[in-house]
């Protein structure tokens, strides 16, 4: 049932414009992969290309060791949840869920009773039991999303592609769906590729994260690995919230200087360098290495983002605890957790050193 996915040399072009170029993308059987990228990065195109829906796509797709590059989408045994849900508006929820089971290639595998039971099962799991006779127009966004998910799961596909399936739900629903999705995926053991612009979802769901930017994969790995050792600036920017601070630094004699702070930097050539500082690795208050001025305070409830100014550079700091501790204009001390600096080459934007 479940199988490994191997995509190589995938490219999608619209007219003369190359939208996606992926050298290699692999998932083990049953693995949950997250395709993380900002909007416009080519996530949807990548998923649709893997599904075989884009005539302008080229490349090889192997699923369970079988080359399906030339197989029609209806024969690939891949299910996909579209960002738009793509429910059939003229069919009831039950008919929508049943639709894949009635396809010519499956219709003989199941009796009408079995079909019914499968639909009821999926509807049960997704809490759609009461809605089976409704039409998509009578459903809320969250309900539609669940129907779309149900339609993908009901036929137990070899590969499940999810295109931002929960990013349009409200926050409360989103958290619930995240957990539910992870649990179902694990239970069914279906190999899954999940596209999202939300780094939080990548952390919460991904066994492996593929960072896609401008149509190309920037880095692949476990989420924490990507967070701690991003291969370049874009990856560092895409993972971690609030966004990483980037400030100019200078390497001289195996040491790096940034904001008046000095750290060892063995093996680096002298010259300018881009330094990444995670807001969560910074602290304000008390007596610290650096003098800073509070510019803005954005409370988050149990935490706050304090924007400070140090040596003419603006930094975001994620503080724990009460936010009313800080007032705009306060002079504060700024601390930088040791081993948290990321150094990037300002020209190539590649990471040259992490964890100092």
């Amino acid at each position: 049932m479940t199988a490994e996915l191997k995509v190589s040399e995938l490219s999608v072009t619209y007219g003369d414009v190359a939208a996606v170029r992926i050298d290699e993308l692999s998932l083990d059987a049953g693995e949950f992969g997250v395709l993380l990228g900002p909007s416009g990065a080519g996530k949807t195109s990548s998923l649709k290309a893997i599904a075989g829906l884009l005539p302008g796509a080229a490349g090889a797709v192997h699923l369970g060791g079988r080359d399906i590059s030339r197989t029609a989408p209806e024969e690939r045994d891949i299910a996909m949840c579209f960002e738009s849900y793509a429910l059939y508006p003229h069919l009831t929820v039950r008919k929508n869920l049943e639709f894949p089971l009635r396809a010519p290639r499956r219709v003989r595998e199941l009796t009408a009773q079995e079909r019914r039971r499968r639909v009821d099962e999926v509807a049960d799991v997704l809490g759609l039991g009461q809605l089976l006779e409704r039409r998509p127009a009578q459903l809320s966004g969250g309900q539609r999303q669940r129907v779309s998910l149900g339609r993908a799961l009901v036929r137990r596909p070899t590969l499940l592609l999810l295109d931002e399936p929960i990013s349009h739900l409200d926050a409360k629903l989103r958290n619930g769906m995240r957990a539910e999705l992870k649990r179902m995926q694990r239970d069914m053991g279906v190999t899954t590729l999940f596209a999202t612009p939300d780094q939080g979802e990548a952390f919460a769901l991904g066994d492996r994260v593929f960072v896609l930017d401008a149509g190309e994969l920037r880095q692949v790995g476990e989420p924490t690995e990507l967070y701690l050792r991003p291969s370049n600036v874009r990856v560092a920017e895409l993972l971690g919230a609030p966004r990483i601070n980037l400030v100019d630094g200078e390497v001289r004699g195996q040491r790096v200087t940034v904001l008046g702070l000095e750290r060892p930097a063995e093996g680096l050539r002298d010259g300018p360098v881009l330094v990444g500082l995670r807001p969560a690795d910074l602290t304000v208050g008390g007596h610290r290495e650096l003098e800073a001025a509070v510019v803005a305070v954005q409370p988050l409830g149990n935490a706050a983002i304090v924007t400070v100014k140090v040596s003419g550079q603006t930094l975001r700091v994620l503080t724990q605890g009460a936010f009313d501790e800080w007032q705009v204009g306060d002079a504060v001390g700024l601390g930088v957790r040791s081993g948290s600096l990321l150094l990037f080459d300002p020209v190539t934007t590649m990471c040259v050193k992490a964890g100092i």
Partner: protein
Amino acid sequence: MMSKLGAWGRRLFLLVWVVFALLPAYWALSTSFKRQVDIYNGPKMIPFVDFTPTLDAWQRLWVASQSDFLPKLLNSFVFSAVSSLIAVVLGAFAAYGLARFEYRYGAYRNDDISFLIVSQRIMPPIVSVLALYVVYVQLRALDTAWGMILAFTSMNLPIAVYLLRSFFAAIPEELEQAAALDGYPAVLRLVRVVFPLAAPGLASAFMLSFFFAWNDFLFALMLTFNKAQTLPLYISSLSAQSQPEWALIAAVGMIALIPPVVVTLVLDRYMSKQVLVGGVR
């Protein structure tokens, strides 16, 4: 803000126009209930006062020995229905193609192709029907059902293509992609997803086609002479007599009115239905 004079002027205009629109229709209806003497003895408008209504004309229509009405009615109905069906089916496939794919035939792109197809309707039918007459003679298609159905199909296909293109363009392509991944090959995607969603469009195209075929006079006049004649020709032949039986003609006219009225009423309601809501976010 409107002056009193304006309001009365408006009411007067509406009244005059309603009378202008309805009076001839009423005249036709009342004529169908008159005897020949009542018709030829000056205008009689009010039943039971001016004249004694009779169902005579209405009854004679259905008696085969007294009128050719039934076979002509059947012809009109079958030709219109079959040709409209063919036009809508063929037109739907073409319109789907024009809505979904990019064509390039020489300098002709999608818009040019659909304009080309619909431009056939700009050409006065008399231009082609003379040539068709000559060809039909050669093909022995004159006065045949298939000949008329072909001619009506050619008349309606452009409209069907033109009308349906916008309907298909409004159906999100992702629904088809979803159906593909759900395991449906291309033809079934059309039949199970696209066509049901375009149902209002298909129905409108069918009914408009039916309307045009039903009302056709020129094609039938040129290409039939006896057994493939349609209702309009029957009416025309009745009125060509020296003392036309206006009551009979009026009755046929009233019956001929039924399909267009149904078409109008159904289109009026059906077009406003919103079928696509809820499918995509």
